[in-house]
């Protein structure tokens, strides 16, 4: 379990995150929702030690990331992070060289599924294909937890469909997924749990099916309540 406990973060003089607490359990798909700029990306970065936080703690399977950075987490950023002049298969080789958890077979499976030509240069990829490659890089690591920052943003319809289908597949099954998005309509039916972040504060945290059962409300209904009061 990823246990985020009372995280606060100040950037310059603004409090970007205020006492943020939630958990991500293995086998569940949790979604962090909010409008742009509310601190969703920042939260993911604190969990992966890509940005420091001022107060609170984050435990991954019980161990504080302040003590030891966890290698059981995979991060898929919202943009391509491999050099443009690298070929896709060179990026895979890079992962293979440095990550003991790299799963070559799964990478090949995903390449097949996404229909990607690994001989292309990363700089030559369309936004949709770059997003697919970022996903492959992240999902091919044998980690229990995968963090995805806006996996659906700014990509075409068909790429989105392919990526969405991944969430029902064995590539994701059994893992603890935390994704951020501001396009909730596309993914509502895939989520186990939703955490709504507004202005750096958690305003709602619920299980989707429970919310539907008890209050007959969809996630979008909940969002509407938050933003329209």
């Amino acid at each position, binding site marked *: 379990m990823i246990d985020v406990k009372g995280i606060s973060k100040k950037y310059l003089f603004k409090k970007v995150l205020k006492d943020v607490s939630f958990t991500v359990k293995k086998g569940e798909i949790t979604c962090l929702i909010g409008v742009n700029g509310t601190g969703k990306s920042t939260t993911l*970065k604190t969990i*992966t030690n890509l940005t420091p936080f001022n107060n609170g703690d984050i435990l991954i399977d019980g161990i504080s990331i302040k003590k030891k950075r966890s290698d059981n987490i995979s991060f898929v950023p919202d943009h*391509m*992070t*491999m050099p*443009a002049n690298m070929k896709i298969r060179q990026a895979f080789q890079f992962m293979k*060289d*440095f*990550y003991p958890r790299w799963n070559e077979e799964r990478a090949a499976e995903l390449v097949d599924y996404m229909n990607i030509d690994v001989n292309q240069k990363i700089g030559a990829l369309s936004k949709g294909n770059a997003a697919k490659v970022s996903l492959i890089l992240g999902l091919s690591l044998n980690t229990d937890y995968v963090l995805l920052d806006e996996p659906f943003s700014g990509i075409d319809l068909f790429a989105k469909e392919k990526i969405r289908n991944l969430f029902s597949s064995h590539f994701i099954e059994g893992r603890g997924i935390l994704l951020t998005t501001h396009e909730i309509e596309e993914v509502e039916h895939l989520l186990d749990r939703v955490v709504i972040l507004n202005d750096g504060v958690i305003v709602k945290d619920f299980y989707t099916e429970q919310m539907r059962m008890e209050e007959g409300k969809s996630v979008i209904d909940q969002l509407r309540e938050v933003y329209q009061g």
Partner: protein
Amino acid sequence: MKNYFKLVDFEMKRFWKIYAALIGLLITAQSITVAVLSNSYKNRFEESYMPGMNYVDDYSVRFSNVTMSDGFMVPIVLIISALVFYIFFTWYREWLGKNTFAYQLLLLPFNRMTIYFAKLTSLLLYIFGCLVIQIAMYPLLNTIFTSIVPQEIRIDQSLLLWLSPDSLLGVLIPSNSVDFFTSYGVGIVAVSVIFTVIILERSFRLKGVGLGIAFIAFCIFLFVESFIIGENYLLYIQERVILQIVSLVMITVLSFMISYYIINKKISV
């Protein structure tokens, strides 16, 4: 350890094309300079030669005349500039552009200080590579010189004398080991300090630059103190040298410690 070597290999491969181009430029430019200058000396002599004249005083040339020339020095200065640029570029490139590779480096599943050491090592390997290549070129360039310039006006020197201490080359390729360690030792310490300042900037931005400047000031203070103490306590020359080395070691260790802490705990993408 294995990750360190793999990372050094990776860093070196990223820069080698530009490096090869620079070396190519060095070899070409210096060879041409030697050939052209040698020819001009030869022609100048042959055109004005009259039997019985004293040519030694007016026309004699040494190889060091060539090595002091602009055509010879400019490529060296160029390479130095490129390497100085690379000290900064090796870090800032990871944040530049739309594919921020910094994410990948900082997420690698081992201590981030390895990145620091890998970049430092690659830089040093490139610098020493240049040195070795320049030294290796000397006999070859000298051969070009001796084959063109007629013996009458040529004054042959030993390799060491070409490198007079007051020339740029003399500083870059010192003829004795003490000077070598001094120049390059201080150089390595300086690079470590610069790396630390860069990491401070990447972690704290503007505040980091302030911290960096304070750190540099402190390092300079430490180094200068080592001289002052030597003066005030009237220490022997060997003792003074030891003091200076100790200060340099302290600065380096401090740089490493600060970088270790900051890059693992405070850096931000």
